[in-house]
C-alpha cells in the first residue's frame, strides 16, 4: 500500500505533524487525545480575522515506539508558524500532566514552532512557562523527554527555551534552534553583521550542525522519520536525568563555552577553535561524514 512504502523514506521536513506521528510510531498504535472532533479551537484568532485550525497547530496523544509506550507532542509548523497560543499550550500541558499518571517510557516532543503566537501573546508566554514546569515535572519523576527538531520552523523563542529543557535533543541538519531569529538579529545589529537573507550564515548560526558540534544537541540525525525513530530507539529505555549534579555539570560546560568562544563572529571561528581544521567544508558534509569527523577528535 502506498502509505506503508513511504513510511521508511518519508522526508521529515516535508511531512505534516500528523504524518510525522503516524510514521514515527508503531503502525496502528497512535491514539490522539483531545482530537479535532472535540471542536475546540482558538477563541482569540477571530479578532484578527485569521482562520483557526481544529487542533490549534499541535497534535498530542499516546502510542508505541518499538514496543515502548510513549506520549507524543507534534507541532504543525505550517499553521501560523507553529506559534503557541492558549489552546495549543493547554493541550501540551494536559498531556504532560497525564504522563505523571500514565507513566510512558518516554515523552517525544516534535518541535516545529517560531515561539509565542503574538495574537495571543500573554496566553502563549504563560503557556510556555506552564509547559516548561509540566515538562520538568515529567522528568522529575524519571520519565525522559526527547526533543526532535527538524521541521521548517525549527524551535525558536519560547519553543527554543523549552527545547533546552529536554533530556535528549535530536536535530537534523535542516533543523534550526534559537531565541531571536535572523531578521530580528539583522534589525538589531545591522545587515553588515547579520544578513538574514544569507542562508549559509543562518544555517551556520542556528542550524543543526552547529548545535551538534558545540554539544547543544545530543544527536545529529538524517532528515527522515525513520532515522529519528531509530535514533530514539537507541536510547530506550533510559531514565531522565534532572538533578543538581546534572545542572552543576551543565553550568560548567556553559561557562567554559562562553569563555572559550567569546568574541566569535561566525560559526567557522567556533568550529576552528573546536579543532576542525577546515571548518568551511563542514556545511557540505553529509550527516554521517560530519559524525565520523567529530568522532576522530
Amino acid at each position: 500500500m502506498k502509505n506503508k512504502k513511504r513510511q521508511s523514506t518519508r522526508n521529515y521536513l516535508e511531512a505534516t505533524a500528523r504524518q510525522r506521528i503516524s510514521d514515527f510510531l508503531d503502525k496502528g498504535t497512535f491514539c490522539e487525545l483531545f482530537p479535532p472532533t472535540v471542536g475546540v479551537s482558538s477563541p482569540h484568532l477571530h479578532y484578527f480575522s485569521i482562520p483557526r485550525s481544529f487542533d490549534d497547530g499541535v497534535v498530542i496523544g499516546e502510542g508505541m515506539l518499538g514496543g515502548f509506550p510513549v506520549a507524543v507532542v507534534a507541532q504543525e509548523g505550517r499553521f501560523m508558524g507553529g506559534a503557541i497560543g492558549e489552546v495549543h499550550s493547554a493541550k501540551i500541558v494536559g498531556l504532560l500532566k497525564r504522563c505523571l499518571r500514565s507513566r510512558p517510557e518516554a515523552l517525544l516532543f516534535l518541535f516545529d514552532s517560531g515561539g509565542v503566537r503574538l495574537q495571543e501573546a500573554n496566553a502563549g508566554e504563560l503557556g510556555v512557562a506552564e509547559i516548561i514546569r509540566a515538562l520538568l515535572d515529567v522528568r522529575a519523576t524519571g520519565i525522559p523527554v526527547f526533543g526532535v527538531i527538524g521541521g521548517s520552523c525549527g524551535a525558536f523563542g519560547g519553543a527554543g527555551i523549552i527545547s533546552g529543557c529536554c533530556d535528549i535533543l535530536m536535530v537534523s541538519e535542516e533543523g534550526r534552534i534559537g531565541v531571536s531569529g535572523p531578521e530580528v538579529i539583522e534589525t538589531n545589529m545591522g545587515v553588515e553583521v547579520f544578513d538574514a537573507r544569507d542562508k549559509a550564515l543562518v544555517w551556520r548560526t542556528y542550524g543543526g550542525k552547529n548545535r551538534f558540534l558545540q554539544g547543544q544537541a545530543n544527536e545529529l540525525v538524517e532528515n527522515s522519520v525513520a532515522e529519528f525513530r531509530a535514533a530514539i530507539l537507541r536510547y530506550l529505555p533510559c531514565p531522565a536525568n534532572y538533578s543538581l549534579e546534572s545542572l552543576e555539570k551543565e553550568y560548567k560546560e556553559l561557562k567554559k563555552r562562553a569563555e572559550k568562544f567569546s568574541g566569535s563572529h561566525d560559526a567557522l571561528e567556533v568550529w576552528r577553535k573546536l579543532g576542525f581544521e577546515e571548518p568551511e567544508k563542514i556545511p557540505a558534509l553529509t550527516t554521517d561524514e560530519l559524525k565520523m569527523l567529530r568522532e576522530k577528535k
Partner: protein
Amino acid sequence: MEHLEYEFKEVGGETAAARTYVLVGVVASGNLEVLMEVAELEGGCRFSIDTSASGFSQSWQAVIADFMERFRPGNVLVSINDHGASPAVVSLRLDQAYEMLVEK
C-alpha cells in the same frame, strides 16, 4: 471571513468508514484543513466551512456537489477551515479525506 453551511439529504449511497474521523491538510495560505467524520445524519451529509476568502459560495457549492456525485457518501460530517485554497485544492483534499476515511 465567511461561514458557509451545506446540507444534503440521503443520496442513496453508503460510506463504509474504517475510522471515526480523518483530518487532512493544513491551514496555511492557499491551503485548507478538512475534518471528515462519521455522524448520525439519517444517511445525509453536512458541510460546515469557515473561510478567509469571502464571496465564493457558488464555487464551494460546485466543488461540494461534485464530491457528493463522485462518492455518494452517507452519514458524513465535513468541517473545513480554509485559507484561500483554489477549487482544485479543495477538491483534492475532500478526495484525500474520503479515501483515508474508508481505507482499510
